[in-house]
């Protein structure tokens, strides 16, 4: 997956986790929490969805990398570069 494809995938996961939010103006550099109502259970949902959809494992001590869209994509890029987008 390319960084753009990873971003689309994260957006898709977020739209499922937070169906009431308008994600069209999401700023990549800003933290998710500044822009959306997300709690720790929601972040666990992101981790679970990546695990279920792509078998990507994110160790607990690396959850902080999921703070913003930019940091998430950057963190996932090496883990997802060999995954072919369905």
């Amino acid at each position: 997956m390319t960084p753009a494809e990873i971003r689309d995938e994260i957006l898709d996961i977020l739209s499922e986790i937070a169906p009431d939010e308008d994600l069209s103006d999401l700023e990549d550099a800003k933290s998710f929490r500044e822009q959306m109502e997300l709690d720790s259970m929601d972040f666990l949902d992101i981790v679970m969805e990546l695990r279920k959809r792509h078998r990507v494992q994110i160790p607990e001590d690396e959850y902080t990398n999921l703070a913003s869209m930019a940091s998430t994509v950057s963190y996932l890029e090496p883990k997802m570069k060999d995954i072919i987008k369905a």
Partner: protein
Amino acid sequence: MIAIDKTSQLPDDQRVVMTAVGLTSPNGNNLEEYRANLLAGKSGVKDYEIRYVGKTLAGICNFESTKYQTKKDIRRGTRAGAVGVWAAQEAVARSGLDWSNVDRSRVGIYVGVTEHGNVETENEIHSIKAFDYDTQYWSHHHNPRTVANNPAGEIALNMGITGPHYTIGAACAAGNAGIIQGVQMLRLHECDIAIAGGVSESIHTFGIFASFKSQGALASHSDPSQASRPFDRDRNGIVVSEGSCMYVLERLSDAKARNAPIIAEIVSYAINTDATDFVLPNPERQAQCIAMALARGGLAADQIDIVSTHATGTSSGDSQECDALRRAFGSSNRTRFNNTKSFIGHTMGAAGALELAGNLPAFQDRVCHATINVENLDPDCALNGLVVQEPQELSRVDYILNNSFGMLGINSVLIVRRF
């Protein structure tokens, strides 16, 4: 003039009244719509399909779920929570309470459930099958969704209620048990307002259907609207339904102080246990439960105008309840008997509360709604005063008695009075 029962002689702070009701049932999302459909003979049972079991029948609720919950709350929570939130919010909205100024630390939530957690557990097991049952794919939402207090807790979260909240597990007697718990807590001054009743999400668990089917107790019929047929010779089992019915209960002294509309007064109740079988009822204990409720209220059987029966459409259960009713009401020419499950199926944890609700307007319109689908009355279920097929106008309705029984031999009876 209404006969004097024991409860009406208590001080007002020991008398408990219903000041509002909110509900969703398979044939109505508020009391007016539900009552109109009960009087019109309109069933809410539909074709339904669920994993593993396949095509079957069910009573399905269709309400505006996003009226009181965000899509995220609905996704995170349970169906039992969603139907509970709907009914609790609707009840409060109809109560005339100035909710923004209510001390919510003095509100208690008491929700009857037949079962809880089956839906989510089945969903998770189904989900991890795709991952060869590797439990690292098991949802972190499972525990908060399946804790037994979940439906009551979701109501508390949604409405900002900080008083006590819990569920009362009482099989299919749970709707009555939830209301009884509310009455007791108000009398003890543990809360000032009780939001009490019952919920059912049971149509979302295949296990309920499969278990009734294995037991030979799951209803089937080519016409869904005729599948739930208590007391009929051709009844062949239970129609599983979802639903919710929550009441706002208050002490009479508080209700009077705010000039609240009063739907009914809860004048008596009783709960007892068969201690004889896991599933088969015991008419002797059921009759004792009814007698206990009458005695506690200082009432005679012939003071009860309407009995809302529990009968679920099973072969033995219906005739056993009729046996109990003959024992308890044999001498009464006044009492009429009806059955709501013939319209909406068995709403499990909500049944007691919901079936009572559909009868409450009789205090004003003096009409006993019918039991539908009784085309050939089973002689074992013949009762003097059984209202079948068409509603019956009565000269007056002062007292309604509501039966609700459940597995493991739990029996509950609630008696309410016109106010």
